[in-house]
């Protein structure tokens, strides 16, 4: 009974774990197959590049959401937070242009990261100090951020200064060794996220808090601090996404980031992270984000779906994607 050596033939466990991780990628593969059948152009380099690049926003934010959700929280405010911080960033840069010229972009980036972190901190503190359901808190702050951007833009929109458009453009449209910048950014974010979640004390504690709050407290983990930190990370991710977003649309409007929160959470869940908390799966999340964007892309590329029914088809595909995973999990 005392044979301690971890025998290599412990397949069931290794397998089970791998399967959960692979699930989303299988779904992704299936989707790509479908795509090729529907429209050969689907696999054209430009199209793939476009789709993946686009999914960057959601992917980056969803990495943050993976922290929040695995620590047992939920953040509905990310969409409007994105709009809000984008607005702040643009206004600030426009104000700085006269004095700093193109450097305003650097300053803007620095600022938006701080603002994002603060927004996250705000969410986190209300949740942990006020001891209120994250759902309600972030629903509230969702309204707050949305209103602030509407206010800042007087219900219209906040365009970025002409002189900044060009220098800023590459952040979205540029590429590095052929890979679009946003893709690189999101990969980097995911790498860092994965490192923090899987390889640091904080990450461990995050998962512990999400898995069983009592055990966490009895193990000397300050549950509140961990939860708050998760929200802060979420805020920073939102800010990073905003940085990639600005050059794409060149303006912040009251409708910026509308309903992103749903896409983000969907990406996380499709990625295999349970909404009730516990283990988070960064790479699955990334896959989830790409899946969502690909579905939207297929809707445009396919010609046999009535415009009115697009949303329905998307809904169906999302559910199917989950089923594919479910069953890929039973080997």
């Amino acid at each position, binding site marked *: 009974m005392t044979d301690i050596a971890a025998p290599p033939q412990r397949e069931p466990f290794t397998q089970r774990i791998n399967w959960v991780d692979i699930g989303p990628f299988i779904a992704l593969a299936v989707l790509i197959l479908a795509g090729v059948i529907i429209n050969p152009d689907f696999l054209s380099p430009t199209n793939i590049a*476009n789709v993946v690049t686009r999914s960057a926003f959601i992917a980056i934010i969803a990495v943050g959401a993976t922290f929040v959700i695995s620590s047992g929280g939920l953040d509905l405010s990310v969409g409007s937070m994105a709009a809000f911080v984008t607005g702040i960033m643009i206004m600030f840069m426009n104000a700085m242009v006269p004095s700093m010229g193109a450097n305003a972009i650097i300053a803007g980036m620095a600022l938006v990261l701080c603002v994002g972190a603060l927004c996250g901190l705000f969410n986190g503190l209300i949740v942990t100090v006020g001891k209120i359901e994250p759902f309600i808190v972030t629903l509230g702050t969702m309204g707050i951020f949305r209103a602030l951007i509407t206010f800042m833009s007087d*219900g219209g929109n906040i365009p970025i200064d002409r002189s900044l458009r060009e220098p800023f*453009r590459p952040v979205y449209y540029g590429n590095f060794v052929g890979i679009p910048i946003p893709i690189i950014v999101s990969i980097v974010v995911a790498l860092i996220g994965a490192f923090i979640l899987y390889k640091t004390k904080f990450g461990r504690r995050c998962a512990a808090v999400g898995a069983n709050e009592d055990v966490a407290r009895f193990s000397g983990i300050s549950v509140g601090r961990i939860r708050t930190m998760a929200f802060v990370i979420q805020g920073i991710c939102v800010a990073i996404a905003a940085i990639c977003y600005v050059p794409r649309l060149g303006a912040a409007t009251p409708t910026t980031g509308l309903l992103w929160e749903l896409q983000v959470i969907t990406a996380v869940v499709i990625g295999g992270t349970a909404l009730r908390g516990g283990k988070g799966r960064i790479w699955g999340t990334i896959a989830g984000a790409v899946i969502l964007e690909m579905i939207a892309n297929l809707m445009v*590329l396919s010609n046999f779906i009535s415009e009115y029914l697009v949303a329905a088809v998307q809904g169906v595909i999302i559910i199917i994607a989950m089923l594919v995973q479910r069953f890929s999990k039973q080997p």
Partner: protein
Amino acid sequence: QEKKTIAVSIPAATHGWTGGVVYHAQKAAEEINAAFPNIEVTVKTSPSAAAQVSALEDLTASGNLNALVILPFSSDELTGPVQSVADAGTFITVVDRGLTDPEIQDLYVAGDNIAVGSTTAKFLVDNLGGKGDVVVLRGIPTVIDDERIQGFEEGLEGSDIKILDIQYANWNSDEAFSLMQDYLAKYPHIDAVWANDDDMLLGVLEAIEQSGRTEIKYALGGNGMKEIIEKVMAGDAMTPIETPYPPSMIKTAIYMTAAQFNGQAPVRGTVKLDAPLITKDNAEEYYFPDSPF
């Protein structure tokens, strides 16, 4: 000869007017595809500015796009992306809202949202004898909404007509109904109501009817929804006029764009659709019974 493709990119049918746009766009597409075998028109709707930019990328990805007819979500956000489509040598037709850089578009079929506001305002100024209290319901915070409110306020300038209140009702008849009920509770005396879209006007009218308030002389909308046109034709006292903002403008634009692939010389420049006052007399010409809008 090889097939010419025209892509039509418009907002998704999230409320009555955009619904009308989608309807007319699809009708135009069907008709043209049927009539001219060498022309292929595809219609794509997008729920948001970001999605519309994505759609543009997708439509151009294949690289064989001859013309683009676009009703931009918002000018600033779409200018850049449309620019890059134009750079690929595609013929650009912009509908309703101009881009921030007019150089980009070959053809511009312009609606005039400012006029929608100001025409209505002028009517009120004339018919309320230059003074009175009005409440306003505005839509979803977007450029359209902003321009209409702007036009309305300009239209009232110089008169003694006072805007008691402006609130968002998101172009949603239910929210308009609630909002109007609350306006009625808040203001003992209201001379006229303006909802900057007919969807909302429907809610407003119900709320007024329920309240049994009699002092309200006018409840006006905008966009030319068929239910409202019907009222105008019937000479309704409370809604005697309407300002059109015909979603059919998309159809016009598509046809004008398609013409060039059919032997005729490409039409360039700007076509401005005015927003004339629809009254009992001219209502018929704005009435499309089979349109959903």
